[in-house]
C-alpha cells in the first residue's frame, strides 16, 4: 500500500503537509484543577491536572526542595484500540509513555515556581488511532494551562513519516503507522524552536532526518497555533463576565 498516491493524496485524503482535524476543549471536568479534551482525527484523549499540592505517598520523600515534583500517568482505556487491551496501564509501553510524557512536559513547566510541591498530570487515551503520544502531550499542555500552572511556553508534539523514500508526511495516523515506513515523534517548544523529546521507530537513514524533522516541527507549529486559539477563546469565554473579551475584541489596549 502506498502512503502517498500519484495524485499526491494520503490514504485518508490528506496532503503530505496537512494535520488531521484537531478539536479540543479546556475545562471538561469540575473537580480537577485543570482538564482538557483533545481530538486529533480519531485519536481522542483526556488530560487532567491536579496540583500543585503537597507531595503524596512516595513522592513525599522524592520531591526536590527547590522545584515541583511532576508526576505523569499515561493510561489507555481498554476499548481504545482496535483489538481490546487487557489492562489500561502498568504495561511496559504505558510506563515508557509516562516517562516520555514527563520528559516533554517538565521542559515546559516552570517547576522552580512550585518548590516542595507535587503536580499530577493524568492522561487517558479514549480512542487510539495513531500519534497517541502527540495527542497526550498536546492535551496535557491545555490541561496545564487550564490549571494555571506556570509554563515557559506550550509543549507541543507531532509525528512525521516518509513516503516513497522522499516526501515527508506530517501527523501519522494508525494506518500509516502500521503500513510501515519510518516514524519520527517530536515534542517541541515551538516558539523557541527547541526539541524536548525525539523518538524514532524503524530504521531510518540520517540523510532523511533533517527534512522529516523539519516537517514534524512544522506540524508542531501548526498545532501550537490551534492550541493557542483554543486557550484564547477559552479565556475569553470564561472571563466574559468581567467583559474583558469584548474589550480585547474592540482592540482597546488596556
Amino acid at each position: 500500500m502506498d502512503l502517498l498516491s500519484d495524485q499526491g493524496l494520503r490514504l485518508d485524503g490528506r496532503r503530505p503537509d496537512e494535520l488531521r482535524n484537531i478539536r479540543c476543549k479546556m475545562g471538561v471536568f469540575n473537580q480537577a484543577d485543570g482538564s482538557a479534551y483533545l481530538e486529533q482525527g480519531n485519536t481522542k484523549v483526556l488530560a487532567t491536572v491536579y496540583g500543585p499540592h503537597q507531595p503524596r505517598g512516595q513522592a513525599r520523600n522524592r520531591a526536590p526542595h527547590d522545584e515541583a515534583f511532576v508526576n505523569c500517568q499515561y493510561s489507555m482505556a481498554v476499548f481504545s484500540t482496535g483489538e481490546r487491551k487487557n489492562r489500561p496501564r502498568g504495561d511496559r509501553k504505558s510506563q515508557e509513555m509516562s516517562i516520555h510524557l514527563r520528559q516533554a512536559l517538565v521542559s515546559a513547566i516552570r517547576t522552580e515556581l512550585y518548590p516542595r510541591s507535587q503536580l499530577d498530570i493524568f492522561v487517558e487515551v479514549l480512542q487510539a488511532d495513531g500519534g497517541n503520544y502527540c495527542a497526550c502531550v498536546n492535551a496535557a499542555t491545555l490541561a496545564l494551562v487550564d490549571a494555571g500552572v506556570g509554563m515557559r511556553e506550550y509543549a507541543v508534539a507531532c509525528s512525521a513519516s516518509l513516503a516513497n523514500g522522499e516526501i515527508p508526511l506530517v501527523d501519522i495516523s494508525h494506518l500509516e503507522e502500521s503500513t510501515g515506513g519510518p516514524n519520527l515523534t517530536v515534542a517541541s517548544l515551538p516558539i523557541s524552536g527547541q526539541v524536548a523529546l525525539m523518538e524514532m521507530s524503524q530504521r531510518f537513514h540520517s540523510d532523511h532526518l533533517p527534512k522529516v524533522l523539519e516537517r514534524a516541527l512544522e506540524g508542531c507549529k501548526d498545532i501550537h497555533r490551534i492550541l493557542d486559539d483554543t486557550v484564547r477563546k477559552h479565556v475569553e469565554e470564561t472571563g466574559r463576565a468581567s467583559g474583558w473579551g469584548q474589550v480585547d475584541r474592540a482592540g482597546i489596549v488596556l
Partner: protein
Amino acid sequence: MLTTKTFLKKTKRGNILKIVREHYLRDDIWCGSVLCKTCSMKEREKTLEKDLDHSSSLFSFPHYLVLDTNIVLDQIDVLEENSFENVIILQTVLEEVKHRSSPVYRRLKDIISNPDRKFYVFVNEHHKDTYVERKAGESVNDRNDRAIRVATAWYASHLAPSQPKGKNKHVSIVLLTDDAANRQKAKDEGLISCSVHDYVSSLENAPALLDKLSKRNFVLEGNSKEPLFPLHLSPKEIQDGIKAGKLLQGTFLASRENFLEGSVNVEGYEKFILVQGHAGLNRAVDGDTVALELLPESEWVAPSDIVLEDAEEDPGDILDDEAKMEKEKQKAKKVEREPTGKVVGIIRRKWRQYCGILQPSQDKNSIRHLFMPAERKISKIRIETRQAETLKSQRIIVAIDSWPRTSRYPLGHFVRALGNIGDKNTENEVLLLEHDVPHSKFSEQVLSFLPKLPWVITDADLERRVDLRNITICSVDPPGCTDIDDALHCRELENGNYEVGVHIADVSHFIRPGNALDKEAALRATTVYLVDKRIDMVPELLSSNLCSLRGNEERFAFSCIWELTKDATIVNTKFHKSVICSKAALTYGEAQARIDDKTLNDDVVKSLRGLNSLAKILKKRRIENGALVLASPEIRFQVDSETHDPIEVVAKKMLETNSMVEEFMLLANISVAQKIVEEFPECAMLRRHPQPPPTNFEPLVKAGHLQGFEINVESGKDLAESLDKAVKSDNPYFNTMLRIMATRCMMQAVYFASGMLQKDEFFHYGLACPIYTHFTSPIRRYADIIVHRLLAACIGADSTYPELLDKRKSHSLCHNLNYRNRMAQYAGRASVNLHTHLFFRNRVQDEQGYVLYVRKNALQILIPKYGLEGTLYLAPPKGQIAKVNFTYNEEEQSQSHGSIKFRVFDPVTVQLSLDRRNVQHEKLMLLLVKPEIPEFSVPSQAGSQQVEAMDVDEVKDVAPPPKRQKKSK
C-alpha cells in the same frame, strides 16, 4: 470536511474487529479540464483538452469519457489504442482495478502517465461533492457504480457554467459501461451512457478496434443452445466445499499430447490427479487454479497414451471426440488406474495473452475464426476478426475473454499481429512472449527517472565518494561488450602486499528505490541475451553509457578493495563508493596479449600481471576446496560468471584472463555476501546452490559404471575428482559428455532472503563456499542492485527503505528474480534453437555425433559442433510398420539390431534436416547415416564436405554463436 469509514475485519486469530478510518473530503480537487473556469489548478494539471474532434458517429458533439471499472478490466487492449483520448479515470475505478488485477492496473497507469493520451485521474472519493457513503444493504459494487454516476453527473454540471450554450460546442460527459443495469440507472438520472461496443462501432476506425474488443459480455448467436459443459460452482460453494474437504484446490496442467486430458497438482497429494474429457476438464485452461472433486475409486482411469489433437476443422459447438478415448479407457488395467477427478469450478484464471496463428477457414467471409496457440497445452480460441485475409499469414496475439458453457472453445479477441510467420523478428517476438520476458520499450514514466544529460560529476558527488581517478584501473570483457559493469586494479603496497580493487558500476546511484525505473527493473529482473538481440533490464542510457565503466571516462563505482598478501590471503577488506576513470577497456584477448608480451611494462600491464598471478592462487585454492569445474578444453559448459550455474555447452576458447576476472568477481561476491549478512541477518539477498539429492546422479553413475569408471558423488569435491579421473584415450569426447551429464544432475541456483532459511542452507554447492551473492553485474541483474543497496546501507553511503528490510518482501522479490532468470535461460536456449532451425531451413547435412542417452524408442544424440542435442527415433511414427526392429536393453542401456549395438557415448553420424510439416512447430530431424543399417539408415549426403566448407561464412551469420554475447567470465 471529514467523514469516517467503518468496516469489519477478521483477524488472523479469528477475531472480528471493527475498524474505523478517517476519510477527508476536500474542496481542492480539480476537474482537470482546460475549459474549466472555476477550478484553480496549475497549468500542467490541465489534462483534458478544449478542442475535441471525436470521430464518433453516435455522439456528434464533443465529449469526455468516463469509464466504468468493467471497461478498464475487460477492454484494456482497446484502451491502449490512441483512439481513446480525453478520458476521465475516477479514483473509484482506479482502486477497483488495482484490487482486481495488477497487470491491468499497471497498463492503465502507463496510459495515464502518457501525457499525449489525455487521461485524467479524478480523485472523486475525496471530493466533497462526489463522495458517496455506502447505504445500509447496498453492496460494494452498487455503491461504486453509484459513485461513478455521481461523479459523471458532477462533471456535467461542473463544466456547464464554463462553456457556451449550444450542443455542438458544448463538451458533454459520456459514461461508458458494459453493465446494463448501471446504464439504465444512468439514463434514468439523465446521464449520457452507452456500451463500449456501441461506442467503438461508432468510431471511424471501428473495424480494427472491434477486433480488439473483449468478447466477455457478448451474447453469441444461438445462446439458447444446450449448454455443453457442466455448471461451475459459485465462489462461495467452492470455498465451503474446500473448507469442508469435499473439494480440492490445485493448479490445472493440461497435457501436451492429448487435448482432452490434464492433471491437477493438489498440495498435499503425492500424485497429480488426473482429469479427462470435456466434462472432466470443464473449461479449465493450463495454469488455472481450479476446484476439483475427486471421483470414487471405482471411476478412476489410467492416463491414455494416445495422442489426440483437436479437430482441424471447426466442428461448431458440439463435443463428439470423446468416443475415441472411451475405447482406450476400457483397456486400462486396474493397477494403472490413477486418482481421477473432475473440475467443478475455477478459483483463479491464469489467462494471459497467447501467441499463435489463425486456423485456415473455409468460409472466407466469415468473421468467426479459430486461433491455434503455439503452446500446445492451450485450447484453440474462437475469435472474431474482419481481417482474416491479412492475418492468416501472420503470427498474432490473442487474449481469452470468457468460456461460456455453450461454447466448445473459449472466446477471445485479437490483440495484435506480430509479423509474418517464419520471419526472424516475428519469431523472436514469439519466443519472448512465450517466455514471459518483458520486452516492450521503456515507458515515458520510466525514462523520466533517468538522469538528465549532459551528466556531470558535481563537487557534492565527489565529497561523498573516494576519488580513485588517479589509480590505474582497467576493465577486461569479451569483444563488443557495451555494458561494462566491472573494472579491476592491482598495485603493490610498500609492505609487500597487494592492494586489489574490484570496481562495479554504481547502478544503485541512478536507480532510486520505489520509482518507476526501479519497479521496471525489478520486474524485468535480468537482461536477456538472445542470439542476435539483447533485452536490457535498464534503459540504454544507463546500461551502455552512464553505468558502463568505459575507458578514459569518469564514472561512479562501488569499490571493493582488499589488501592481499603475496599468497592471496585477505588481510583486510574495504567497501566504498568511488569515482574512477578506467585507463583501458580491454578484451580478454587483448589483456592476454599484454600479459604475455614481455616487452610491455606499463602500469596497466603490471596491474594485470599482479591480478593474474593472484587469480591463479585463488583458483587453485578454490578447486582444492571442492569447487566443481564443469568445463573442458575445447567444449566447456557455459557457466554463469559467478554462480557457475551450468547453462549451456558451447565451443569456446578459455584464456587465462577469463578466469582471472572470474576469480576476482567471485572473491568480491563472497566478501560482499559476508558483509551484508553480518549487517542484515534477516534480509540480506544471497544466492545458494543446493546439493542435488543422490538420486539425481543415478544416470551419471550408471553411465560411468558401464564404461568402467566409478563416479563418486558423495560431495562436490569427490565428484570433481572422479570426473577428472574419468578419461578415455580412445574417445576424447567422453569426459566432456560425462561433465554434460553431471551438469544435468545439478539443481538450480537461486536467490533467497537470508531470514527465510537456516544458515547451513546458504551453501553454494557448485562453488563450494558457505555463502555467496551477486554483486558484480548490477547493469544486467536486479539482484545485484539490491545487494548494492544493502551494502551501501552497511557502510552508511545510502539509506534504507522499508521494503529492503522486510524479509517477506525480499522473499517475494527473490521469487520473481528466480522466475525471470529461469525464463531468460529458456528464452536464450529457445533463441539458439530458433537460429539452428533457421540455419537448417534449406539444407541437409551430415554431422558427427555421440549417443548421450538411450531411450526406449529413441537415441538422444549430442552434436558437439553445434552444441545441440536431437532425438533419433528408432521406432517409426504411429501407424507405420517398422521395417527394422531394435532390441532395447535397459540394464545395459543399449539398443541393438543384429550386430550393431548403440550404447551411451558411442559415436554416430547423423543427417540433420528440418522437419517443416507443422508450421507452428518446426523441429530438427535426425536420421542415421553411420553405422549403416539397411532399410533404416540413409545414404551419406553427397558432397557434404563442400557444403560444409561453404557454410563457414554463413555459420557466422546465423548459426548459434555462443549463447550469451556478454562476457562469460
